[in-house]
């Protein structure tokens, strides 16, 4: 898919190294393949609207950033619920398709399914081309 992943928490880079060594490498073969960034002080999280000052941590925020550096999607969850990587991958595939073709992808679109070509001719005719 050609996507670079960066993870960020308020932990130090030393903690990241040991977490990868003692736990994550036992859950993911070979350990974590992407850079683990440190946001001590929460300054980066603040700019991204995900830093919780009371708890002193970055909450679960996920941003899809395109090759122009523009944020295409964001999802923010409170800590006890984990994210769904399948939905993340689906969204990345949809944004990559849109960028390549200029088409639009309807609700729940996955690669290979019908896309929409926005324009005057499509107005009132979505029901003809897209049958969920």
């Amino acid at each position: 898919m050609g996507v670079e992943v960066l993870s960020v928490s308020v932990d130090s880079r030393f903690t990241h190294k040991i977490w990868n060594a003692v736990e994550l490498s036992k859950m993911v073969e070979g350990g974590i393949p992407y850079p683990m960034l440190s946001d001590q002080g929460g300054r980066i999280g603040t700019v991204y609207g995900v830093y919780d000052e009371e708890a002193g941590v970055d909450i679960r925020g996920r941003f899809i950033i395109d090759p122009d550096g523009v944020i295409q999607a964001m999802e923010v969850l409170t800590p006890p619920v984990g994210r769904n990587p399948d939905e993340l991958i689906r969204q990345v595939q949809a944004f990559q398709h849109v960028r390549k073709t200029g088409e639009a992808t309807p609700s729940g679109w996955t690669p290979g399914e019908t896309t929409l070509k926005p324009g005057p001719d499509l107005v009132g005719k979505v029901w003809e081309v897209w049958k969920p």
Partner: protein
Amino acid sequence: MPEVDSCVQAAGGPLIDEPVPIGEISSAKEKPKMTVARVGKKAPDFEASAYVAGEGFKNIKLSDYSGQWVVLCFYPGDFTFV
């Protein structure tokens, strides 16, 4: 010369284009403009220290990844449960 990694590694944090100098803020109500993440807008650039398996410690900027798709994931902390 081998690179020595000290206990404290400065990293730029948010790299905001033109922070307003304190002297130019005319009233207490007027705060310097802060870039805030929004969909459809440029992702605020930053620099952070990082651990990269197999490479060690290095500073990384979001703008290092210009021209590529990036998924940026914040999470509450190492060794937490979810």
